[in-house]
């Protein structure tokens, strides 16, 4: 009887290990594929969000591109920020997001601190000390 119980326990352990060993590679593969695909989608989404943002108009005279790239020259008031936040809300569907340059935050929305899904875009700055500025979008 004791011998039979040992065989039964060994059989159960063997079966469970065999099932896990067979399913484990599948789970790893699915995780790997899902993570990479999600990264690819989010990267594209963030890039296109920034591209769409700078392509739109701020008003009849100015484009969003000029508002952002010439903000140090022409000023960057609350109404400009609100318009950008409104557009970014539509584009990202995110709880919170930040628009940052190399050294500082240009604007941010939401109580939470966005840390994921980053995209970047280069803006030509005709009146700055540096001709090109890199802008990052961080959202989640």
């Amino acid at each position: 009887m004791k011998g039979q119980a040992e065989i039964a326990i060994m059989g159960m352990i063997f079966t469970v290990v065999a099932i896990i060993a067979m399913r484990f590679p599948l789970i790893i593969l699915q995780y790997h594929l899902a993570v990479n695909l999600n990264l690819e989608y989010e990267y594209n989404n963030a890039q296109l969000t920034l591209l769409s943002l700078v392509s739109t108009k701020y008003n009849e005279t100015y484009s969003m591109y000029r508002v952002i790239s010439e903000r140090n020259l022409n000023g960057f008031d609350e109404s400009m920020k609100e318009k950008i936040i409104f557009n970014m809300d539509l584009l990202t569907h995110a709880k919170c997001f930040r628009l940052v340059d190399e050294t500082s935050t240009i604007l941010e929305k939401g109580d939470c601190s966005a840390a994921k899904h980053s995209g970047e875009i280069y803006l030509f700055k005709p009146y700055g000390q540096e001709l090109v500025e890199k802008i990052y979008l961080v959202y989640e």
Partner: protein
Amino acid sequence: MFSKQAKNKGLTHTMMFILKGLFAIAIIGLLYWLFLDTILQMHVAINENTNERHAINLANVLISSEKLAYENDRKMMRGILDVDKLDEIFVRSGSFTLIPIKDIGIGYPNSLTLVRIIDLEKCNSFDICDGWIGYLSGPITLQGLSIVNFGECVSEHARADIWTIFKFFVAGPVLAWWHPLDLANCAENNIPSSFKLLFTNSQITSEGFPIVIKYPNGDMHLGRIYVLLGEFS
């Protein structure tokens, strides 16, 4: 007496042996089924992943293509779609027109793509936005398969009469326009039995990519493009 006991003991041993054998066969069968199922699921996962990557790539090509993108001084504006070009290829969503299948030269071989573009700044109070919808077909390389012919057959058999509106609300849009027998005939005549269609529900399908829609009067609206790619083999 001893002979009967020995006989019972032998019977018990035989029964135990048979039960152990059946149990072992069941375990081996289960493991074999799990092995096959795992391999099948790996194939499906890889195919789905490829399909979703294709959908992302296709969306990127579409928004950069001269067929859809706005041109300014011969410069292609990536991500800005021209309304005039959209009207040529797609139908406005909400219009009671049949959605045509078009080949604009963009698409993976043996594929059918459902493209939906919505204008996020033209939405009603129910969050239903204006937009465009259309099917794009890629080059067909399979012998005997014509998804375009299937589309044409389905278009030909669409019926509109006084009962269409009633049937639309009772039985849904498909049964409102088509008789089930007509649909079955179209499928039988144009789609071979080896037809396998892979539609996946991915982020590009459900969430889309952001775009800008350029109207002829100069207005620029924010929008999204959704791409649902069906690949068959």
